[in-house]
């Protein structure tokens, strides 16, 4: 007998959660791993008194604004760097040096520069998004099939038309790949910045639950954060699907997604 593929997909998660619940109910799990049903209960608790909605709004504001600013800047500069050698030569050494530096290392500087409020977190998230998005956009432009560009030139297309009608559409899948990495960076930075000194947001929700010994509350925050990151990625992929209607068909990425 063969188990259907769709069922196989769910075996591991269901077994893990069921075992966690069972051992938790039997009192065999450590205190810091509360049973899933208790976590759901805590989620309901913070959702009911409005605390979850406030934290969500704060975190969403920070991550969305930071992501949009950083990704926008990274895409624009990256497209420029891919097109104009002068821009490329200016940014390449700086980016390749700063890329591997955890941007959270600049937190002390940003805190002093932008204060303890939203601005320092937003700036740090934008700063962190910039680098992967820049690299992806720059490579995307350089990887555009030269024949496409030559053809456009041959047909008398102006430089601007070539850029907007040939280069940007051809680079678009890679631009989305860059934005996706940027989004992952945005959530990492959001969590780290919120954990290391912020008022409001999901990070403090997690650390407050931890400090109070309410591990169910801590997990409620963790689950919320994980779902938020997951949904953000799904939304980005849905936008990509709309923008690139025809371009994804038959690619391996689409097949395994």
């Amino acid at each position: 007998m063969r188990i259907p593929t769709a069922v196989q997909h769910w075996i591991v998660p269901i077994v893990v959660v069921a075992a966690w619940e069972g051992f938790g109910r039997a009192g065999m799990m450590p205190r810091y791993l509360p049973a899933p049903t208790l976590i759901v209960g805590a989620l309901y608790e913070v959702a009911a008194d409005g605390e979850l909605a406030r934290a969500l709004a704060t975190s969403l504001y920070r991550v969305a604004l930071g992501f949009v600013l950083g990704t926008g800047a990274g895409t624009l500069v990256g497209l420029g760097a891919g097109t104009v050698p002068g821009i490329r030569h200016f940014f390449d050494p700086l980016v390749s040096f700063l890329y591997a530096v955890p941007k959270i290392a600049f937190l002390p500087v940003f805190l002093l520069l932008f204060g303890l409020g939203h601005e320092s977190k937003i700036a740090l998230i934008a700063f962190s998004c910039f680098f992967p998005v820049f690299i992806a956009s720059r490579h995307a432009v350089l990887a555009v099939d030269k024949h496409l560009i030559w053809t456009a030139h041959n047909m008398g297309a102006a430089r601007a038309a070539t850029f907007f009608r040939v280069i940007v559409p051809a680079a678009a899948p890679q631009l989305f790949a860059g934005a996706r990495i940027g989004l992952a960076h945005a959530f990492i930075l959001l969590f780290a910045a919120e954990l290391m000194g912020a008022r409001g947001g999901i990070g403090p929700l997690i650390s407050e639950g931890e400090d109070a010994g309410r591990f169910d509350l801590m997990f409620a925050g963790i689950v919320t954060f994980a779902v938020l990151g997951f949904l953000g990625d799904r939304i980005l992929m849905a936008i990509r699907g709309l923008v690139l209607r025809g371009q994804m068909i038959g690619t391996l990425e689409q097949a395994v997604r």
Partner: protein
Amino acid sequence: MARLARQIERWYSIPLLLLVWQAAVSSGLVESRLLPGLGRVAAALLRDTSAGVLPYHTAITLARAAAGFALAACLGVPFAAAMARSALIRNLFEPIFFFGYPVPKIALFPVFTYVFGIGSPSKIAFAFLECLYPIVVTAYLGFRAIPIRLIWSAENMGAPRRTIVGRVIVPAAMPGIFNGLRIALPIAIVVIVLTEMIGDSRGLGYYIAISGTRFEFANVYAAILVIGACGFVLDRGLLRLRRAVVHWERDADAR
């Protein structure tokens, strides 16, 4: 001469930026406490390097990052191969890797500190988890993207199973494997420094956090320089290794 000009064209922006930095500090445009002059950063770098403080913290950070990265590479690549080979393993674990990929795993770090303690183990385990995802997913896509014709050709020519794996499948998957490793390497460093900043008494992350709270920004910049240099050197090393292993690849993209 022309080569020199090209080198200058390719690298001038770093000294230029440093020059602007120094000019901004010297002219008093920015508060020098926030942006210490280059001389003070260099002095801090020199002082803490010769005193052994920076090398000590750097060694700890790099050792942790290397441990997490190596674990993820050694387990992740064979696991990706198994996923590509067996439909059962693929069906069981593909959703975990592809749906779990965009989930910000950093949120789980507090749990890691409870399970593994606050010292090195929780940080290594977390770096392992963060590196595992890009390594498995990229290597898996690499294994699956192998043209079946290559394998058929080898079979047709009478190659035994072992030869096909060693001479066709593994080499064909190498670019994908290296792509994953290259994505994971900076992640390992970033994750270790970040978790050290959240809570530790050793490592470069701790050094940055403690210097920041003491408003010793020259030290913060010195540590950022050290991390940048380490990341840069390690990335170049990995590229060299890639070129040596995937020597048939003449891909401008890989640069």
